[in-house]
């Protein structure tokens, strides 16, 4: 039996091949529509949700329940002696709470499950997962991994630029007046994660592509402080040509060893809307 297993929520938005290659356990969130309940990534994708929302209908997203976490951890504990599970930020989802309760329940059976609140979403969590996997493969202990993750999460810069505030309003993140103002004055809000909470950062005005270019430039402006090992461009419903332009723009400001383009999960997509993307990187 292997020593340490790394598991995470599906909203970490890492490519599926990465999970398979590194034997990362993933637990899936759920999207509820008016006709059913669907598993993120396996049954419903980001494109499906965008189409659904653009037809004027609403969805709800749910983290797995405590029982589902227990069942998930149980299955992972058949392969590993102990588990480190990295969750989406506690302030935006119940997953950390449910996972912690599940871990507590399993502790009674002497199972060792450590739950980490990433204080991020999307590939912000992804960075932590990759770090954990690397440390595990180098033979580090669970405690070391946990400590490093707690330290690393303060250095992760998770932000996204959205074309408008429609989806943020639908999900209650911003009031309607903010959405109306964005529509009227062609404002493009930037969503940032600060101390585990979603905040509206800067707001760009005017043509969306120009705003995106400014956002990329600003995100990478202090490139001396950025860890150039890896960064993610995580997007929702962007075309290939648009993403290529973003990559080219990012390359102008900062050369990364790996600049990985990933698609956001359906859960994340339902909160941002089409044409949203983010540059997610880590400070040194």
């Amino acid at each position, binding site marked *: 039996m292997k020593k340490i297993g790394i598991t995470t929520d599906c909203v970490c938005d890492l490519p599926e091949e990465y999970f398979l290659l590194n034997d990362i356990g993933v637990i899936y969130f759920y999207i509820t529509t008016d006709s059913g309940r*669907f598993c993120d990534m396996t049954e419903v994708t980001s494109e*499906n949700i965008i189409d659904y929302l653009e037809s004027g209908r609403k969805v709800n997203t749910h983290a797995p329940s405590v029982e589902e976490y227990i069942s998930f951890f149980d299955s992972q504990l058949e392969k590993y002696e102990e588990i480190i599970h990295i969750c989406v930020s506690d302030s935006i989802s119940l997953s950390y709470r449910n996972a912690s309760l599940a871990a507590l329940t399993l502790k009674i059976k002497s199972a060792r499950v450590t739950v980490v609140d990433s204080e991020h979403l999307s590939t912000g969590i992804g960075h932590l997962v990759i770090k954990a996997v690397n440390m595990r493969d180098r033979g580090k202990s669970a405690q070391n991994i946990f400590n490093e993750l707690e330290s690393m999460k303060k250095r992760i810069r998770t932000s996204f630029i959205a074309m408008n505030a429609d989806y943020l309003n639908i999900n209650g993140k911003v009031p309607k007046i903010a959405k109306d103002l964005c529509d009227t004055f062609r404002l493009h809000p930037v969503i940032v994660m600060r101390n585990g909470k979603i905040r509206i950062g800067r707001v760009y005005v005017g043509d969306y592509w120009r705003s995106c270019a400014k956002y990329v430039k600003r995100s990478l402006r202090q490139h001396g402080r950025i860890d150039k090992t890896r960064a993610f461009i995580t997007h929702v419903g962007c075309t290939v040509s648009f993403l290529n332009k973003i990559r080219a723009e990012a390359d102008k400001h900062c050369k990364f060893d790996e600049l990985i383009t990933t698609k956001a999960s359906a859960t994340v997509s339902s909160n941002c809307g089409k044409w949203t993307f983010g540059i997610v990187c880590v400070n040194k």
Partner: protein
Amino acid sequence: MVYRLRQFLGAISTTKLIWFIYTSCVSAMTAMTLLGRWSRVFLWILFTCEVVVTILTFAPKATQKIHSYAVTLTALVCIFSCSVMDNEFYPYVTALLVESIVILAYKDEKVMLTNLVGSMLMILHHIFYGNAVIFGVTNSVIELVLCFAIIAAVQIFLTLFILTMKKNETVMRKSMESARRAEHSKADFLANMSHEIRTPMNGILGMCEIMLRDASINDDAKENCFNIRTSAKSLLAIINDILDFSKIDSGKMEIIEEPFNMASTLNDVLNLAMARKGSKKIEFIIVLDPSIPCGIIGDENRIRQIMVNLLTNAIKFTEKGAITVTVSQNRQDYGINLMISVADTGIGISQENIEQLFTSFQQVDTRKNRSVEGTGLGLAICKKLVSSMGGFINVKSEYGIGSEFRFVIPLKVSDSKPFMSVKESESIHAVSLFNMDKFNHPEIPRRYSQIISNIGAQLGIDYANYTNIDALKKRASEKAITHCFISADEYLKNREYFNELSRTVKITVVQERTDSFDVPASISRVFKPFYALSIASALNNENLIMNLNERRGSDIHFTAPKARVLIVDDNDINLKVAWGLMRPYNMQVLTAESGPAAINMLRSKDIDLVFMDHMMPEMDGVEATHKIREMEGDYYKQLPIIALTANAISGVKDMFISEGLNDFMAKPIELTALDRMLRNYLPPEYIQPCSAAVYSGPERRKSFQKNKDAKTFDPESGLALTGGDADAYGEILRMYVQKGKDKREYIQKLYESGDWKNYIIEVHALKSTSMTVGAAKLSELARELEGAGKEQNYDLIHEKQNTLYEMYGSVINTIREYVNANYPQAGQPEELYIPNAQALTEITEALLKEYISVAKQAIEAFDSDETDKIAEQTKNLSYHSKPLADSFGRAASLMCDFEYDSAMEVISVLEQQITAGIK
């Protein structure tokens, strides 16, 4: 605060907004009056105007028009009074202009003109009674003229603006009307075209079905017929695609949710896919979750349509490798999420093209895919269908590697038992021999290995796969095997071993549909794709998988010999088609060519179910139904009437039900739909389940007497050679006997005249027909004489011709006896077909008894001429809607064959039926 204000402003109407502005202005004027110490009269004027406007604003019955005039006139009065009080004119020009802009909100040019007139009057007053102008002072005059021009220009401009706006609105309204009419016309066009296109398609497909079930046509003709049916179905599929797309586009697609079994759907889809695969070297791999419930509630047709679409695309774009179909489920509180994916090893799709994949009318990469047929509608339709069922569809692809299309649909469950299970699984020890090395794509062994490794656990049986014969032999020697599945290649390489093994082990050979090799009777065969369901079927001794002939026909799972069904259609081909499709159910099928004919037939009140065509001349199906429902008696109110129509546009079902029909079935008649209708609407006690492998009714053959030489006539082998259809075999035998007499004499005549060329032709034909019916010895002799003729070995012919002649006569007699014993007169299929019930004349019981009496006398006197005469006289007669040609014609035919006893029996049965009350 701002948010609330905006919400408030957004919610208020034009009149209220204008009242608010008006009130503010009146308040300002009131303040001016008080501050300027103007006459109190003006206060009263302001107060009165305010009250009038307020009442008109909040009064429920006050229209916007009244409000607009009230506001305009009172505003003019207020401004005029103010200007008079103030003894000034020019400051109030601005007020007039602002007032004009505010009343623009009413969008009424008459109000604006009223305002203009009022403004002009005010100016004139100030010119003549005020000090607006000092005549003689040029500047003053110019100021006045300018003022006048500005006020007039602004108000005229605003009036023109309103007129233009109204004109644009009218144009837009007309365009929308026109669009709505065009939409309507499109719907009508589609409805009509749907009918006009589907009617002949119905004829083509139905005739093909009938021919495919006709055992008298040879395999080549059957193959051609099958190809015609396949092409016709493809054409119909394209037409349906176009109609479906239009339906979906206009939001009129109906999703019909009914319980269905996924196993049956999958079987249908795979059969279709295998037919479409053709000669491509593609392996179909099926991965099933055996715990999928056997009863799920959804629109089976649409789900099948989506699967067929995806599979068709996969086949189109894959030249070699594998197509993997995965069917799985996730349990939910409401039932299940059914997940189906189709993955191929085809050309794949680039990421840029994935973005436009589900867009209508586009086949991606059209230059490259020019040779690939397709309207490009398929995926767009799939997406819309999945969406209308509350599900989602998505795609993953890598260019040059392959694609995977996956869709998920939420469904309720009607029966939670697993759709796949094996009886007495603990006693089964199954093995298989499949060598994966031969496959042309590395993906295939990987996927097969995955399936095979799970089969034992999925079905709860002891199961192991071996990749070479030695390992299998070792296993067979060490531990008992009950079932063995082997590929065709392995069988052919080790034929003797497996033939021997089949004595103790149930062996199933898995073959391609194009493979042709013989196996002994102890070995069964199953067509690819080979998957858990085919294994389960084989282990349960069920014939869920069709053989070559059966797949070209259709499965019948029940018969209803007591049921009487009436088909009403003005088109005789449609009647024949419908009759032919219902024939295998062994029902009594009557036909009528018009509504009045149907009504006439229904007076006997012994019809159980009516299929009523919609579009007929003189009286259409709906009108006929009304008349039937108006007839006296509960029978007519409750008689199930199913609309048959080629018009499959959405909404027709509701229309038919509202007109008094019970249900609707689209033409071309889909066999599953027909099956469902018969199950739903025939009295349950009439339905008799039967084995799916048998087309027609219950077993009627007696076992052949053991002291007869089986080589002379072996009905078992004859039945096997003609596809296992007992009824069809009976007809072949009858035809053999009927034609045999003349043929025998003709061969003898050719021999005697020395016409060897034609002699060879005739004995050649005799060789194959005799083999077909099971007369192996006669066939062998005919083959010998044919060979002798070709070699000009006439001595042999002289030696054996007499033997042939005698043997031929003996075989004819033997077969006649067999037919008489095993295929009695009642229930003869072709006699149930009444081409035109309208032409039959109903006779009385007394007259019928007279005919019966005469017929009996003729039979007792061995007078076949008399029985022929009676048959001729009664051929257009009926009694209680039962055609008498059935009985008297049959008796006459038997008389010709000297079957006097049988002829008497036929007439006696008819007599008994009259006594019992014919039904």
